[in-house]
């Protein structure tokens, strides 16, 4: 990955959203507007737009460092979704909507409804269509019901006028892509934090990281984090998320999150369940990511059916559809 971009992305989020502000952002009554303004000012939100249209002309690999940084900062602002949505509107020759745009999978209901984290941080909600395309609705027009775990249910009155995006794209793929990649960033952070804690916390006269039983678990955590990063890189290729690459990444990150969180919490002596502990934020982020836009079962079924439709061996399928791309 381009280290300049990686450094720039990490710098931006360190400044825009330091840990103290992060928790303030999560409070619907007191969320400060400055972090979002800093991100707007950075120009990253038009990263996928061609340079001729005022963008940075990047592809998914180009924005990967920023998306990973969002994950490793447990960023509640919908940076990735806004980038993809702005690019999609621009491609249709439409003016992108103002403000933060979050992406959501609609729930089956007579009128529009969705599950969302931190709905107060989005100006607009883009609901994935079932037949491609999406429906843009103002977040402020929704009735919000908090459900716990950082999630709320949003219901819109059927009479609320939305703005249709008829781009034919399967926005569930875009949503799953963003979740998978941010989960990879979150897992990397969980590994770093857990390693640091294992070096600091002393029991029985030594750092717990000196015990072989703990070391073996931390190695598995590192393996899952490494696999997650490679899965994210496999998916982040081309101008737009690919369905099969996204499926593979979402499946592998889902598995990795489940395994890694069990280890991280065990090594932290379950202190991560407290609200004030940062591991808590990443637990919620990963838990939400596993479930959002289809879990492992959904994407496994899709990927498996695609493999069954092909001929030839499994390696041929992987080479044709899931090969690393420069």
């Amino acid at each position, binding site marked *: 990955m381009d280290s300049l971009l990686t450094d720039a992305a990490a710098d931006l989020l360190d400044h825009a959203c330091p840990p103290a502000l992060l928790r303030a952002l999560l409070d619907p009554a007191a969320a400060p507007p400055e972090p979002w303004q800093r991100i707007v000012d950075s120009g990253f939100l038009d990263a996928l737009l061609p340079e001729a249209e005022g963008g940075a002309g990047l592809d998914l690999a180009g924005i990967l460092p920023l998306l990973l940084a969002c994950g490793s900062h447990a960023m509640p602002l919908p940076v990735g979704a806004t980038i993809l949505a702005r690019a999609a509107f621009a491609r249709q020759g439409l003016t992108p909507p103002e403000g933060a745009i979050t992406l959501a999978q609609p729930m089956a209901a007579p009128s529009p409804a969705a599950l969302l984290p931190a709905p107060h941080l989005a100006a607009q909600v883009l609901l994935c269509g079932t037949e491609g395309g999406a429906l843009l609705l103002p977040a402020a027009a929704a009735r919000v019901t908090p459900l716990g775990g950082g999630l709320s249910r949003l219901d819109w009155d059927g009479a609320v006028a939305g703005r249709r995006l008829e781009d034919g794209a399967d926005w569930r793929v875009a949503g799953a892509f963003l979740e998978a990649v941010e989960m990879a960033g979150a897992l990397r952070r969980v590994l770093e934090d857990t390693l640091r804690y294992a070096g600091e916390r002393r029991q029985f006269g030594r750092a717990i990281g000196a015990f072989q039983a703990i070391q073996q678990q931390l190695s598995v955590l590192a393996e899952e984090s490494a696999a997650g990063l490679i899965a994210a890189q496999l998916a982040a290729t081309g101008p737009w998320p690919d369905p099969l690459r996204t499926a593979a990444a979402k499946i592998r990150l889902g598995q990795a999150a489940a395994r890694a969180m069990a280890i991280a919490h065990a090594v932290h002596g379950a202190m991560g369940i407290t609200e004030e502990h940062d591991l808590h934020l990443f637990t919620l982020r990963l838990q939400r990511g596993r479930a959002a836009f289809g879990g492992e079962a959904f994407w496994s079924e899709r990927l*498996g059916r695609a493999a069954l439709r092909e001929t030839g061996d499994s390696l041929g399928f992987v080479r044709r559809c899931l090969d690393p791309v420069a």
Partner: protein
Amino acid sequence: MLNFPDLATLPPEAEAFRREVRDFLATHLPPLPADRRARSWMGFDAGFSRALARQGWVGLTLPHHYGGAERGAFARFVLVEEMLAAGAPVAAHWIADRQSGPLILRYGSAAQKDFHLPRICRAESFFCIGMSEPDTGSDLASVRSRAEREGEGWRLNGSKVWTTYAHHAHFMIALVRTAGTPADRHKGLSQFIVDLSLPGVRISPIRDLAGDAHFSEVVFDDVALGPEALIGTEGEGWAQVNAELAFERSGPERILSSIVLLDRWIAWLRETGESRHAALLGRLMAELAVLRAMSIAVTARLAVGASPVTEAALVKDLGTGFEQSIPTLLTEAIAADPATAPPDELLRALAYVAGMAPSFSLRGGTREILRGMVARGLGLR
């Protein structure tokens, strides 16, 4: 903190080489049922190895001077990937090609290189690895086999066990004690190239759970070795053996040991139009794709001359877990409906792989040893 390498791609010349490998396999691979192909790198066929050698692909990374193909890490990745996916019987030349040959190239004398490497490249010399002993497995420093100086040469006594295809091999590279006692641990160990046709070498095959005899017990009873049998430096066996083990981690062989079984199962699903196991298949494809990308990323490090020991251990631990999960998961899937009749070939392949799978995470370093290496890479020890 361990930074796993970024995604890397196979260069175009490696993909061009893949076409050559496929053409070769189409012509030379004997028609074998899945349960035979599932033996993958335990399948022994000297004729196949010699055909591969005539093609110039045994000793793939060895210099032209010795008859090798002088190709790099990416070509090796592609050759191994294609051969294992096809279930080619590579065991005859496998150890010499990827482990003994590179070891001799690195530590051998000019005479040893001139003698052994061309024979390896012609698939005339097959090698086996003499590391494990009856009481020595993961704790390799506790070997008790001993070579004592005698005249110009050495006298070797002791035994090795779980030696893959010793009964078909011409030479063994054995790690033995030349000074001190097992209490001295890694000090006083040396490596020897033992001609297995010498008087005093007794080889007894060990039958395994699959009904095969891949492994042997090898007893050395006053075997007289010439001075040229010592490879590398006397007393440096430990360092040499660790370098040797690094040659055998993280490649496609640590991911694909169950692939023939998986592919036979997929073929059955397609034959019957059965889609209820699509989710299981999708999950396995996701894991395979990520592991393969990780293996290529490590290969790219090898290609630039780095020594990614920790990264290789990490991939091997994940990869062998994947290989081992396949027979477990497929047993469940194949038995999901007792009224179906799976093909005999599939059942035989499953029986073989399920029986041998426990060895996948043992050969080349146990899971616990590998995780210890990763922990070291993380700065924990």
